[in-house]
């Protein structure tokens, strides 16, 4: 009798718990990410050149994969490394790669422009060398590259983001002029 009772209770429990395991389409969260246009115009060109080299994030095997004119090209297009400017599809892929790295945290950053959450992002911590990063310390807090990336994330004035990104690009090989805002 006891066994039957236990079995019945287990069955009821299973029936009650099962729906909790089912996917609830209404539970999907929207990921917010800072301004895509500013990223594409100013931040992506810098990240393509400083992070997206073929032997770094311009590699198919990297979780944060970056495409660009001088690095990896989009597999659904017919461009080659070093030829033709970065395409809209590549810019979108770069934006998704950066925003998709930590969706919840980047949503928090985008929801509170100017907040401190930006300093917790892996993107920023790795770039600053505060987190293990094979590429080492790519930028330091408040230098031009940092002001470019973090400024975009933080929702800084577009002109200051543009200026920081341009100054950071000027330190890299080759000349690349960003379009003024």
């Amino acid at each position, binding site marked *: 009798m006891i066994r039957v009772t236990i079995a019945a209770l287990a069955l009821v429990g299973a029936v009650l718990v099962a729906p909790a395991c089912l996917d609830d389409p209404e539970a999907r969260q929207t990921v917010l990410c800072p301004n895509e246009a500013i990223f594409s115009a100013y931040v992506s060109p810098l990240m393509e050149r400083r992070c997206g080299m073929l032997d770094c994030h311009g590699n198919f095997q990297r979780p944060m994969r970056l495409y660009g004119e*001088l*690095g990896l090209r989009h597999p659904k297009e*017919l461009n*080659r*490394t070093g030829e033709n400017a970065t395409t809209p599809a590549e810019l979108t892929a770069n934006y998704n790669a950066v925003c998709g790295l930590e969706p919840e945290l980047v949503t928090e950053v985008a929801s509170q422009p100017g907040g401190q959450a930006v300093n917790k992002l892996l993107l920023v911590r790795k770039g600053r060398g505060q987190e293990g990063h094979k590429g080492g310390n790519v930028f330091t807090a408040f230098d031009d590259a940092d002001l470019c990336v973090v400024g975009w994330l933080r929702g800084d004035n577009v002109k200051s983001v543009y200026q920081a990104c341009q100054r950071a690009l000027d330190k890299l090989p080759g000349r690349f002029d960003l379009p003024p805002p």
Partner: protein
Amino acid sequence: LTSKIWLGLSLCAAAAVTSWVSCSHDPVVQEQIDALPAEDANGPSELHRPGQPCVLCHSDYEGAEPALAVGGTVWQQSPISFLLAPVEGVFVTVYDSAGASQKACTNAAGNFFVRLEDWPDAKFPLTVQVGNRFMRSLIGRDRSCAGCHKLATKTRVERDPALDPSTGAGHDSAGAILVDPAAVPAEERCGPNPASAASSTTSATGGGSGGAGGAGGTGGGA
């Protein structure tokens, strides 16, 4: 008791062997080494394996001597046949992020290299000048130029619809490092057979395997 001691010793030995093997084996690098073509008929020399990633083997991992700080191959492309041929006698200057630089001269196979002992502390990212050409992108960490400057292979041609079968440029590579010997400034020429207009190809020549005879200078700090 003796059998227990022997069992313990055996287990320790097995653990030591296992840990040594796992520490000295990198499956990613090993797969790339295993995929390299067979050694040149003349065996290893500074002219061998042009266009292949030098530092896969010339490294702590594989232990080929000399260990290299950086190495690669410079080519020219025939304007008629589009085939590649090595460029001898051109300086390759590599600059690091700390302001240091090293010059190397390409040899008869187009190969150049800087020994690790001559530049043990190169600070990445690097930039490069070859003859009159400046690399537009940075080198993040790969010491083998051919890690990114890949030649065309059957596998790459099959996988990459954008691939240029002559230079190897495609989705994931800028292709061979190309220089026109005729355009190399005098101060960027070097070695016993400096690059010149006379060494520029105007007819079909093969590329991609084996080194021609002759000797080229290499190394040298700057």
